[in-house]
């Protein structure tokens, strides 16, 4: 009877999780789907507890440790989720993800140390433990390094950019393998286990550390996929089919998302993982060098041009997110709209720091969803656009990607902003973008630079526009 109940609950949980992931792919149903997945998770936990209550029982000591773990993890998670600003979403996902990997690692560690208690003896169990430890450790250290790099706490040491890192990483991989073989050879080999834990942990660091900031979201997405694999492996360790299904689904989903992100940046997964930072090779490619023909202009001129425009397209980028200027931007566009000017936002697939991140930031600032246009939709519309305002975006508006076959960016899909009548680029200075490549757009005759922090420039722009009499009802 209890078995039947257990299977029924597990089945419903899997169904709800699948529906949850499915629903997350549509804007209208996404929020409900997320809640559905949360309910499914709760149901799965409840089912597991009920099952053990009905069979072996749960001791008082076990309850105490369960409650302790739940309180600490749950409360910290809830606080983090509420406090973290939307701009640091990639770091947050990396942190959560690393903790998921750590959890799988610890369970596998427990099973390896006390195989009798968890029925984890025999070669199949050992292989599952090896996979769970290996992937879990890489996920944990890799995610933490990714988070630290995105937060600016860590930068890549010089030797990590050299070819020597490949030798180091291969050595670490071999050490992990030796540890795994040792564990298979003798069931109670502590040496093999610890070698595996340490080597795979270091491997996670060694693989992630050389990767440049621009590629970091891809890595986070990949690590997200890994944490699913680690969970599935933990499912093999403790013999839970529900864990295996859920882990496999997340693993597959993460892989697809990673591929999508790579396509958006015209990078192959292999070059992201083994190519190191793009900036290191950029100098050899075409299009390097100094800017010669830059036109800069004042906020006042920009305001006057905007006032005369009929159609304005905003191109938001990473710089806007860093400056936290999305709310000021929304104020500016409100003023423009009230003057009868048509406003749209051109969203490059990898605008911001992850695919879809810019949409989240703009939604936070109350930008109507209909105004957000994807690249393929808006590119044909640029010739009919009067003014394009590029805010902290760089590589995604570089015409080199279309015109210069020698450029490292060549082939990357970009926004054709140069087709518009006038382009204003708001930028802190003439530094290069993530890729370290010169942007030909800045030298075009119809481009003017507005130097300064995006938030400050937009604030000044707002004042100028209001001085011109816009935005009064």
């Amino acid at each position, binding site marked *: 009877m209890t078995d039947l109940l257990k299977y029924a609950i597990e089945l419903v949980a899997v169904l709800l999780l*699948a529906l*949850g992931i499915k629903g*997350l*792919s*549509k*804007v209208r149903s*996404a929020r409900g789907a*997320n809640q559905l*997945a949360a309910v499914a*998770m709760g149901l*799965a*936990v409840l089912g597991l507890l009920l099952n053990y209550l009905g069979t072996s029982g*749960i*001791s008082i000591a*076990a309850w105490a*440790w*369960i409650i*302790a*773990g*739940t309180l600490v*993890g749950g409360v*910290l*998670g*809830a606080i983090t*989720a509420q406090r973290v600003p*939307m701009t640091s*979403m990639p770091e*947050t*996902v990396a942190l*959560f993800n690393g*903790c*998921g990997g750590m*959890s*799988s690692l*610890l369970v596998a*560690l*427990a099973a390896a*140390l*006390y195989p009798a208690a968890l029925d984890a003896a025999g070669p199949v169990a050992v292989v599952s433990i090896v996979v769970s430890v290996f992937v879990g450790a890489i996920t944990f250290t890799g995610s933490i390094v990714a988070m630290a790099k995105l937060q600016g706490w860590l930068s890549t040491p010089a030797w990590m950019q050299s070819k020597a890192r490949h030798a180091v990483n291969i050595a670490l991989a071999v050490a992990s393998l030796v540890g795994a073989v040792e564990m298979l050879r003798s069931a109670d080999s502590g040496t093999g286990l610890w070698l595996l834990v340490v080597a795979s942990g270091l491997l996670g660091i060694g693989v992630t550390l050389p990767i440049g900031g621009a590629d970091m979201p891809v890595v986070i997405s990949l690590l997200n996929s890994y944490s699913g694999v680690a*969970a*599935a492996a933990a*499912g*093999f360790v*403790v013999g839970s*089919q529900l864990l*295996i*299904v*859920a*882990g496999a*689904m997340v*693993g*597959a*989903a993460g892989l697809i*998302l990673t591929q999508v992100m790579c396509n958006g940046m015209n990078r192959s997964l292999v070059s992201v993982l083994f190519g190191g930072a793009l900036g290191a090779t950029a100098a050899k490619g075409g299009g390097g060098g100094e800017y010669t023909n830059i036109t800069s202009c004042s906020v006042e001129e920009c305001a006057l041009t905007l006032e005369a425009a009929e159609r304005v397209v905003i191109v938001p980028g990473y710089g806007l997110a860093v400056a936290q200027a999305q709310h000021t931007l929304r104020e500016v566009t409100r003023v423009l709209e009230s003057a009868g000017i048509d406003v749209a936002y051109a969203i490059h697939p990898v605008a911001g720091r992850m*695919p*879809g991140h810019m*949409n*989240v930031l703009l939604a936070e600032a109350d930008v109507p*969803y209909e105004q957000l246009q*994807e690249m393929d939709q808006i590119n044909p519309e640029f010739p009919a656009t009067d003014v394009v305002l590029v805010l902290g975006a760089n590589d995604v508006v570089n015409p080199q990607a279309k015109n210069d076959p020698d450029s490292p960016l060549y082939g990357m899909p970009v926004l054709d902003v140069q087709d518009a009548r006038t382009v204003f680029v708001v930028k802190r200075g003439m530094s290069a973008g993530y890729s370290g490549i010169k942007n030909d757009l800045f030298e075009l005759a119809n481009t003017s630079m507005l130097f300064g922090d995006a938030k400050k420039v937009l604030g000044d722009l707002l004042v100028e526009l209001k001085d011109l009499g816009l935005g009064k009802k």
Partner: protein
Amino acid sequence: MFVEFLWVLLLGSLLGLELIGKVPPTLHTPLMSGANAISGITVLAALTAIIKAGDNTVLLLLGSVSLGFALFNVIGGFLVTDRMLAMFSRKPARKENR
């Protein structure tokens, strides 16, 4: 038993590939975050370890810490995803472009 598990793994992977085949780029970040929360399903493994630990304190401790990490992932992940999606659904009656 093992073969059965392999089938489950295979079918689960295929399901995952199929489920998120078509997602608008807008939702990639929330999807990543939501999927990440689901990967915290290792709570189940952590709970199993605690319950089966008996009076083995090391095992109890390992399980409990593992549970903490997993729940940090689950609760934080779902809440932060909800926060993101709440921004999208604030204004009703919108059309999906893709």
